[in-house]
Structure formats: C-alpha cells, structure tokens
C-alpha cells in the first residue's frame, strides 16, 4: 500500500506553497466524511515509490476546539474514519517566528510518528537577520530539520529526499515536552488511563492528556459517548485535585510547552530586536493608519471592481465573436429544423452566454487570491473589525464574507475559523447576500446593455458602468448589515466571540499559489457551466421550442437561405459596380428575402408565444409585472433557481428562439435592447435593468449554497429559512427599485 505523510503547520507558514512544490498539480480536493473540513491529498513522486501527502488545515494547536483542529488530531492519531494513520509527519514552521511555531511541534511529536521539521521562509529569515543554528536544533529535537523557501522552490528536493529516508528508516522523536510536565499531572494521566483500561476502554496516553486538559473538548465528548461510567465527574474531580497541587488545567500546558521551546532554542536562535522596523512594517503603518488605512481599504475594493470591467472587455469580445462564428458554421452544415435550433439556440447560445463571463470571474478570483496571499486580507479584517462588531459580527467574518464575493460556498466553508458559534451562524446566513461571481454575469449583461458606456469621469479612469457595477456589488453587503444586526439581536443573541488574529508579514504573492487558486475556482465554474447550466439550457430550449409545429418556420427558413444563396451568386465581385439589369435582379431577390424574413420573424414570435415556456411565463406574469418584468424575464428567473448565472443562458435561449433571422449574428444584449412590450414600448429600460439586478443581488437562487448551509448548520430548517428570507428581500428590493426609478422617469 502507498505510504502516507501528513503535512501540517501554523496558518500562513507557506504550507500551500510547499504542498504544491512537493506534489505539483496532482492535488485532489474533497471533504472529510460527515464534516466540512477540506481534505487535500497530493502525490509525491519519490525516487522509488509514490507517496500520498495529506495537507491538513492550518492550526496553532492540537487542543481540538474547532472542527479544523479536531480533524488534524484525528488524522494524526489514525482516528479519522476511512483514513489510515500516517506513516510520518512533516511540520512546516515559519523560520522568522520559531518560538510560536515550535509550540505546535511540541504537541505533534507526542503523537509518536516519525517527524520532519521544515523551516520555511528561509530567505526572509536571512534578510531580516534571524539566526538559527539548524544542525544544533535538529540535534536537540532529535528529528531532521530542513530549511526551505517554498515559494521559490528552494530546498524542496531536499525535503522530498528527507521524507523518503524518514519512511525508509523511521526514527521516532525522543525529546518530548511532556516529560517536563509536573509529576502530579503525569500521575493523574496514568491513573485515568488505567481506570479506563479497567472498563475495557484502551486509550492512548496522548488522548488521555487531551481529554484531561481540554475542558469539554473533542476527546472528552468522544469518550463520554462510550460506556465509561461518569467520565465528566471523574475528569472534574481529577482537574480539581490537580489544581490543589498547583497544576492549573488547562493553563499549565502552554506554560510548560513554551518553557520547553525556550530550552530547545536557548542560544541557537536570535531574532532582531522587537523595535526593528522591517519593510513590511513600513507598508503596514500606512495600510492600518487611522485615516489612510480606511481610505486604502475602500480604494482597494473599488479598484478591484473597476479593474474587472476594464480588463475583461477584450477577452469578452473575443468569446462573443467565436460564438457568432460557431453559430454561422452550424447554419451552413445543418438544415433548418429542430436539430439546428437545438445546437444553435440551445447549446451554443446557452454555453456561450455563460462562458463569456469567465474572464471577469478569473480576474476577480485573481485579485482575491492576491489580497489573501500577500497578507492584506488579515489587515482588512483588522481594519473593519470595529465596524463588524457594531453589527454583531467580528473581523473574522470578513474573510468568509469577502470570499463570498467570489462564491458563497467556499465562503461559508471558511466560517469554520470563527470559533464563536453564534458569530458563525450569522456569518453563514448573510454570506449568500455577498455579491458572488454568479451574479456578476447578470450585472455585466444588464450594465453593458443598458448603462451608457461613454460616460466617464476623472479623465476616463472611472466609468459610469464601473460605478453601477460597484453599486450592485455593494447592495447585498449593505442589506446584510441590518439583517446581521437583527439576527444577532433576536435569533442568535449572546456573547461576542474573540478576535485573536495573527497579522503575518506582507510578502509577494507566490505565482504557483495564485495560479492554483484561480485554476481551482475557475475550473469549478466551467464545470458548472458545462453540466448544470447546460442541462437547464437544454430544458429551457425544449420548453421554448415545443409543442407548436415548426414546419412553416423551417420552410420559410429554407426559402430564405435559398434566396440568399441565389442572390450571392449574382452579386458582382468585390469593388465592382453591378450593371443595371444585375442591380434589378439583386433588388428583386432582396425584396423576396425581406418578405421571407418578415414571415420568419412573425412565425418565431408566434411560436415562442405558444410554447410551454410562455404558458408558464404568462401564468406568473402578474407576479413579476410590478417589478417591471415581462414573462420572459419571469421565466428566466424561475429557471435560474439551480444557479443564478443560468438566467443568462435562459435569456440567451429564449431570445435566440424568438428573434428574427436578420438578428441571429447579434449578441444577447442587442436582442434585449430591441425587445418590446405588445404596445411597442421597450421591455428593458434602466428601471427594469436595475430591478432585475437588485433581485439577483438579494435572491437565494443557488442550490449549492442552500446545500452547504444545510451541511454547515446541520439543519434543513436554516437552508429553508435562507431561501425564504432572501427571496422575500429580493422581491421587495426589486419592487422598490422599480417603483422609485419609474417615479424618477427612468422606465421609458
């Protein structure tokens, strides 16, 4: 069987960089069964064998208070169902912050596995004058110690070799902090272990320690479920007795471990004086400055959304052109009929309408990854914590909420780092209000189609479209404020959680890490576009195509194409004027072509009006009319229940089916602009566009999000609650938007 090596360390030690450098792009990302802690396994190509590397969540301690920590210790002890105990452990530590990083190591070595210590960020340690005598450190710890700069792949080959030789000749760590613990504790733990053994429950010493030290912790809860008498009372009595003997649970552990770390590092680690100002500090002074800091925060967020609109324009054009070319090609090789309609109006229009937004999504993911990796995200949490506290949340909610701007699913999963349950619940419930990348297509479509592009301010650097886009991206977050406040006050009332946050030094983002994050997220989006959205597009196409007979339309279409072809034949070569007789023949053809086009248009409008789609749409039209929508928008919204971005594909299909032939080469935006009410007024005005955008900003149209809420909060009730409250908000929001803008006269 393949050997397994666990990789763990404090957060922000460059663990992802090392993992990527060791395993390349072979990582498989999943979840541990039953819980939502992310499980990442990669394959290390050794000289003789393949080795599985399990990337464990970043953690400061094995005290197992959060779900992340519980998984970490369970995997290390081989208690995680379906996982075998790893054959070795690699602990990665920040070389510029050895003391605190070795705290975790002191706990890990007690698991009793062959252990390798990797001191990462070595380049920085050298440039900041940290002195570490690596060989002596290895000698004192009794385990191999290596240095790396994983972001530049320096020292990675040595790590791979060290892992292989550690697996070939396993050496167990011998210098344990536990041996320095007070005698009273060691005796109490041994006594508890033998007590449990008498009741036929064999518990390894490490788990006994954790059970005793972590009040109401992971192991206490776990063993309380087994039949071991009144475990809680026994533990309480033991802890009381220990306190009398001067061994205060749980605080003694940290004291003794840090004392052990000090002994280990004594004389072999000198760090720069605390008042040394590094370049990171100089940057930080401004980014967390009283006034500049707040301004920098707002400026950064605003720039990100401006950059998205500006940078994405070119690739979007390219995708649109390719889509038109593809459809033109299909028209040449497939005869008019259901098949051509399915390919062009269903498949290509559906997928193209979603893919066109890929550039923007990649750019957004890229910026989020940069901010995360360079260290600004933690500062952003620091800067906005007071603000978040005032609405009952914490700065720690910031990262999950900011990630939710990309997608609520990873955002909600990121709430695991919030230890306070009530803070976490509220964060989960408002996370879907953040404007995720699936809404971006809806906004971009509406903004590009209906907000004038030539309105620019400040020398052309700020566009009106950019401002509206920014406003739409902010609407959800603004609405989230009162929602969070009310939830915290009435539903999850109680004490605020803590805010212990490490502000790690700024660093240049690592390209591999950026590449991998963007790749993972963008490919997830494309997979969705390729499956869920594809299926919905086909269903919507079918509902819009049937049940009426298309014979007349297909006949007219064939006629139109034949006429166009004949006209092409008699056209003079480029640049030459046609003769008079020739011109008359061309005009004659043109008149016939126009007549056929008119029949096609009328027929298409007739067909879509009698389709299943229209039947559903017209039934719900009275409900959506107050929002300024016609039945087509209503149906598209209904069909986008599985995922918001589906609305684009649906609109693409509906308008493609219902549009005249002469428009077939034009994009969805053109078709929407030319859409009319029966009385001739345009369907889309700025008011309608804004109303659609506000609806999508606030609605809960995303099955994945609802499912992740169910899993994280462990109840369908909260998933249903999210759907109902958000849909209500969305409807009211859209109605108010339409009513106000209509009153302002923007509905014309």
């Amino acid at each position: 069987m393949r050997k397994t090596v666990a990789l763990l360390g404090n957060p922000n030690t460059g663990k992802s960089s090392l993992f990527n450098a060791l395993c390349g792009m072979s990582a498989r990302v999943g979840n541990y069964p039953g819980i939502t802690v992310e499980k990442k396994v990669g394959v290390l190509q050794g000289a003789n064998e393949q080795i599985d590397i399990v990337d464990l969540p970043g953690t400061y301690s094995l005290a197992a208070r959060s779900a992340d920590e519980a998984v970490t210790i369970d995997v290390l002890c081989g208690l995680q169902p379906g996982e075998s105990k790893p054959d070795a452990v690699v602990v990665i530590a920040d070389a510029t912050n050895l003391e605190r990083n070795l705290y975790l190591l002191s706990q890990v070595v007690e698991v009793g596995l062959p252990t390798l210590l990797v001191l990462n960020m070595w380049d920085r340690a050298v440039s900041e004058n940290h002195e570490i005598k690596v060989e002596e450190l290895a000698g004192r710890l009794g385990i191999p110690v290596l240095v790396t700069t994983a972001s530049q792949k320096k020292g990675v080959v040595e790590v791979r070799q060290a892992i292989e030789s550690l697996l070939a000749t396993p050496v167990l760590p011998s210098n344990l902090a536990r041996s320095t613990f007070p005698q009273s504790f060691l005796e109490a733990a041994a006594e508890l272990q033998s007590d449990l053994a008498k009741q036929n429950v064999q518990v390894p010493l490490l788990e006994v320690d954790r059970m005793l030290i972590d009040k109401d912790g992971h192991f206490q809860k776990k063993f309380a479920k087994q039949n071991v008498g009144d475990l809680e009372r026994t533990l309480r009595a033991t802890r009381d007795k220990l306190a009398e003997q001067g061994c205060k649970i749980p605080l003694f552990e940290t004291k003794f471990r840090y004392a052990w770390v000090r002994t280990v590092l004594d004389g072999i680690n000198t760090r720069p004086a605390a008042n040394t100002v590094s370049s990171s500090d100089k940057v930080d002074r401004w980014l967390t400055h009283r006034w500049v800091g707040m301004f920098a925060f707002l400026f950064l967020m605003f720039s990100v959304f401006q950059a998205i609109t500006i940078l994405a324009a070119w690739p979007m054009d390219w995708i649109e052109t390719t889509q038109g070319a593809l459809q033109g090609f299909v028209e040449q090789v497939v005869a008019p009929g259901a098949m051509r309609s399915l390919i062009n109006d269903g498949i290509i229009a559906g997928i193209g309408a979603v893919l066109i937004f890929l550039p923007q999504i990649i750019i957004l993911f890229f910026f989020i990854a940069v901010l995360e990796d360079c260290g600004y995200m933690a500062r952003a949490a620091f800067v906005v914590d007071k603000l978040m506290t005032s609405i009952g949340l914490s700065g720690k909610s910031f990262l999950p909420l900011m990630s939710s701007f990309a997608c609520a699913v990873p955002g909600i999963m990121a709430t695991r780092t919030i230890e306070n349950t009530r803070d976490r619940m509220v964060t989960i419930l408002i996370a879907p209000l953040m404007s995720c990348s699936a809404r971006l297509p809806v906004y971009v479509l509406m903004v590009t189609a209906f907000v004038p592009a030539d309105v620019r301010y400040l020398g052309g650097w700020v566009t009106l479209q950019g401002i509206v886009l920014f406003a739409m991206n902010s609407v959800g977050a603004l609405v989230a404020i009162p929602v969070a406040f009310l939830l915290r006050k009435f539903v999850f009332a109680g004490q605020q959680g803590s805010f212990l946050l490490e502000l790690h030094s700024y660093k240049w983002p690592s390209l591999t890490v950026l590449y991998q994050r963007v790749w993972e997220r963008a490919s997830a989006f494309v997979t969705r576009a390729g499956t869920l959205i594809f299926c919905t597009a086909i269903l919507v196409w079918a509902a819009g195509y049937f049940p009426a007979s298309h014979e007349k339309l297909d006949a007219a279409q064939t006629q139109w194409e034949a006429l166009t072809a004949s006209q092409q034949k008699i056209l003079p070569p480029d640049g030459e004027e046609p003769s008079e007789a020739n011109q008359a023949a061309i005009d004659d053809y043109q008149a016939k072509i126009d007549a056929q086009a008119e029949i096609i248009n009328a027929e298409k409008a007739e067909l879509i009006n009698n389709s299943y789609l229209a039947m559903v749409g017209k039934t719900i039209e009275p409900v959506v009319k107050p929002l300024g929508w016609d039945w087509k928008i209503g149906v598209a919204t209904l069909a986008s229940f599985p995922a918001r971005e589906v609305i684009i594909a649906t609109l693409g299909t509906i308008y493609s089916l219902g549009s005249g032939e002469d428009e077939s080469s034009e994009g969805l935006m053109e078709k929407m602009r030319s859409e009319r009410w029966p009385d001739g007024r345009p369907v889309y005005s700025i008011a309608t566009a804004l109303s659609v955008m506000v609806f999508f900003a606030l609605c809960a149209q995303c099955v994945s999000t609802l499912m992740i809420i169910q899993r994280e909060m462990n109840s369908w009730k909260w998933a249903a609650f999210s759907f109902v409250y958000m849909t209500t908000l969305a409807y009211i929001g859209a109605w108010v938007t339409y009513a106000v803008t209509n009153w302002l006269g923007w509905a014309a």
Partner: protein
Amino acid sequence: MSNGDRVSKGLSRLSDLEPGKAAIIQEIDGDDSLASRLMEMGLIDGEEIHCIGRAPMGDPTEYSIRGYRLSLRQAEAKRVILSPSS
C-alpha cells in the same frame, strides 16, 4: 467576578498599554478557552509585549510578541495583566 476585583486593585492591563510602549506580561486572567488561546499564541508570564498601534476605528490593537504580530480587541487585551514593574 475576578475581573472587577482586579480592576479595583488598579492592576495594569494590556488594554491600557499605549501604542509605542512595551511591558512584561504577569499573567492571564481566567482559565476559559480564551485564556488558553491567548497563552497558546505565546502570551505567557514573563514575556515582553509591544503595542504597535490601533486600527482606524480605535479597536482592535496590533501587538508584537515573540517576534510576530497579533491583533487583539480591547476586551481581550483586558484579560492580560501586566507586571507592575514595567
């Protein structure tokens, strides 16, 4: 309980430490999970801690301890009792 007692005794706390100043930690108040978390992050008696600066809205505050930067709210910094000599 002990919180109020100690305030009245006039013990100096980390929350009172001004930006730019440093002090020595005497002990952590309480034995709940916040106390253990603070200690896990290296706030142990005898350790020197520097106050770097406050966030734009006055809270939380950035500290330097054991060569790294940590952010704490006033409410949490209150739990850290400083040695009177510092």
